[in-house]
């Protein structure tokens, strides 16, 4: 059964302007891989050159950050919702 993935505003342009997409997969990592296979322009905003999730992106399974679960190996079950949440940060100087 496909899982709902909520797309944040700045990335919707890379997902046919949808705020929700569906993908198949047994883990969060599989879901994201299947999603980016379909919407390839999302890839550069979610993954770094080494193919790892960018540190500026948080992935939530329902209300929990997967960094505090099993990261991309976190299993998903029917009815779960995955959210992509951009880390918004900045400030003066470096």
């Amino acid at each position: 059964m496909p899982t709902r993935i909520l797309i944040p505003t700045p990335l919707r342009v890379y997902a046919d302007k949808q705020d929700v997409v569906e993908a198949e997969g047994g883990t969060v990592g599989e879901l994201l891989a299947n999603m980016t296979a379909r919407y390839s322009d999302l890839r550069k905003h979610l993954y770094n050159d080494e193919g790892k999730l960018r540190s500026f992106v948080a992935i939530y399974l329902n209300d929990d950050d997967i960094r505090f679960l099993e990261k991309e190996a976190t299993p998903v079950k029917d009815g779960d919702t995955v959210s992509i949440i951009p880390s918004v940060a900045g400030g003066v100087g470096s």
Partner: protein
Amino acid sequence: MLTLCADADAGIRRHGRETYPHECCGALIGRNGRVVEALALPNTTEEGSRRRFRVRPADYRAAEQRAEALGADLLGFYHSHPDHPARPSQYDLDHAWPVFAYVIVSVAEGEPEALTSWRLREDRSAFDEEPVVIEETSCQPEF
């Protein structure tokens, strides 16, 4: 171009004054490039709030939900640069997202001054400044 209704402009400047010498931050909510609400958010950085801001994921989600409740869009975010120009830093660039407007207000010795807006280039190489129009009237959603 980004348009700020009078209340949104005043809200950003007031927030910058209140948090000085620390950075403030918040979300820009509106539609079609017109901001009708500047939603103040807590600065949750752990790197020193005189030089950094961070919006925690729960507040980001709340901003998206607030926009949806208004039948509007999340247009971007604002933050202040205490005693620094209203120009984005390399740190701002590193953390920027496409599509969003990034509004910066310079706060010099506690008083808000220049307010600018910036958008990330598609290749992430730089920001481009965009004109900002401040409306004289208070915020009336037109959608």
